[in-house]
């Protein structure tokens, strides 16, 4: 009987997961029919046309409205024999941060400076000519150590880099003492334009992580200079306006053209995470994991957090900061229930609780200092330790001791409940 129930849970979990996966696939395989540009033109469109006419470089988009992502074909005419780059950036802004603790080559010191911006485009990509596919593959092979500014130079795409270059970046000088008391450190004076651009490139890498997210070799340039490019806004991208701009060199740029991406229920946009996801996915995952969590006697966060950052492109800071409050209420109600029957040692709980209060003050500060890879790595080891603890709890020695303990626990609880009842009367 027990086995039956267990297998049922596993089967249900697997089914939910498969349903979720298949809805994802369905979304990808059937791009929703976006209305053609001729049917629904945004109001700003005629105006832009006029400005574009003045610029020497013109681009045409085959559609300007998208429903949860899709592919747009950009065509245009550039001077013959020159590479063409297309910059696509979302108007939606998200937060990006990077902690610089690498040794400075000039001074030999570690700067320990936290760079933070609230104006990073929620999605940003430069489309490079198809001929540069090999160069891009080389960059992809570098693994996590790749440099965005170097990649821009190698691909010649630095001329197209403009949207994130002017974002406002705050710098904080972190100190050991500051980190201990949980402060971000002192705000340093603003950087000049050049420095700002350089740091913004590092933030682009910190935010989008892989070269495939920020580069795509899909601009097909013909010998006579006409070019076509497939610009794909991925499902799960932020809703709102996207600016598309073609760049040949410093002086030859097209006016930005606008594309509107609409995201509808049940896909919702999380403004802080910068991602649109089908809300059924996290809902079912949280449900399954929290049931399992209660059964194994540990909170679900252990399994939920690594899964959330692995399955969806969610920043680890947002995952950590949002999962934590979800257990607040269940813990609160647990304490209330125990306190009703006087089953809490307030002295002990508060004493250790105050130490934990101090720890909880520091921890969230550390979350933004680490990268996603470090987050996953440390979490991996935490899970190994937890698995060890779980295994220890299934050993015969522990079980026997636990049996006695549980019996005493039950006995005491019964007495406590009776005492509480008697008092109530």
């Amino acid at each position, binding site marked *: 009987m027990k086995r039956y129930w267990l297998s049922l849970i596993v089967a249900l979990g697997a089914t939910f997961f498969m349903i979720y996966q298949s809805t994802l696939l369905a979304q990808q395989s059937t791009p929703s029919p976006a209305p053609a540009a001729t049917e629904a033109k945004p109001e700003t469109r005629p105006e832009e046309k006029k400005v574009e006419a003045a610029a020497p470089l013109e681009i045409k988009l085959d559609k300007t409205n998208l429903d949860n992502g899709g592919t747009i074909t950009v065509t245009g005419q550039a001077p013959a024999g020159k590479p063409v780059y297309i910059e696509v950036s979302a108007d939606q802004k998200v937060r990006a941060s990077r902690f610089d603790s690498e040794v400075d080559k000039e001074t030999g010191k570690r700067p320990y400076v936290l760079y933070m911006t609230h104006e990073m485009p929620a999605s940003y990509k430069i489309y490079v000519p198809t001929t540069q596919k090999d160069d891009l593959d080389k960059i992809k092979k570098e693994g996590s150590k790749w440099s965005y500014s170097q990649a821009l130079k190698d691909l010649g795409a630095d001329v197209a880099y403009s949207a994130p270059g002017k974002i406002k970046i705050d710098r904080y000088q972190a100190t050991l003492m500051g980190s201990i008391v949980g402060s971000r450190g002192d705000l340093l004076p603003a950087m000049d334009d050049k420095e700002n651009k350089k740091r913004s490139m590092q933030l682009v890498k910190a935010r989008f992580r892989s070269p495939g997210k920020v580069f795509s070799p899909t601009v097909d340039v013909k010998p006579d200079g006409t070019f076509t490019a497939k610009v794909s806004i991925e499902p799960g991208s932020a809703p709102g306006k996207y600016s598309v701009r073609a760049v040949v060199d410093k002086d030859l740029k097209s006016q930005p053209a606008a594309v509107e991406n609409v995201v509808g229920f049940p896909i919702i946009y999380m403004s802080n995470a910068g991602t649109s996801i089908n809300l059924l996915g996290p809902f079912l995952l949280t*449900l399954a994991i929290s049931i399992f969590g209660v059964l194994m006697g540990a909170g679900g966060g252990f399994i939920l957090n690594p899964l959330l950052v692995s399955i969806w492109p969610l920043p680890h*800071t947002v995952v950590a*900061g949002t999962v934590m409050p979800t257990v607040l209420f269940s813990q609160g109600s647990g304490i209330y229930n125990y306190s009703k029957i006087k089953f809490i040692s307030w002295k002990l709980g508060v004493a*250790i*609780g105050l130490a934990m209060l101090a720890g*909880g003050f520091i921890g969230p500060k550390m979350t*933004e200092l680490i990268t996603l890879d470090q987050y996953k790595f440390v979490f991996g080891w935490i899970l190994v330790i937890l698995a060890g603890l779980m295994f220890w709890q*299934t050993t015969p020695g522990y079980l026997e001791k636990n049996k006695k303990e549980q019996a005493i626990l039950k006995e005491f609880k019964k007495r406590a409940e009776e005492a509480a009842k008697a008092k109530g009367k």
Partner: protein
Amino acid sequence: MIVEFWGQEFKVNVVLGCIGGFLIAIVSSMFGFGGGPFMVPLMTVGLGLPMYVVVGSSLLAIFFNTLMGTARHYQFGNFDATFFLVMFPAAILGGFIAPQIAKRISPLMVKRVACAGLLILAANLLGLF
């Protein structure tokens, strides 16, 4: 420190408890989980307290951590309201369904499955496959 609980007195090494709790709180609030599975062994094995003292008191201690961690994450802008509204009902619902299932399956079996699952997940996170 001497703690009195239901007519019995326990001697508690409060320094060890506080240092352990402090470290657990840093890690758990940093990574965004509760910390219960680490606190309970700390208090039973590390401090030598019986289970019936630990169940309620560890929950109270962890609550302090969760409260502070939540406030700080909110302060740093790590809280996404939409995401929370998706997960919160699921977590509450899970809390109601779980006890119904718990009556029917052996906790030993759950722990063994959890153990295997955690190792697989850990291997994945550490990039072993």
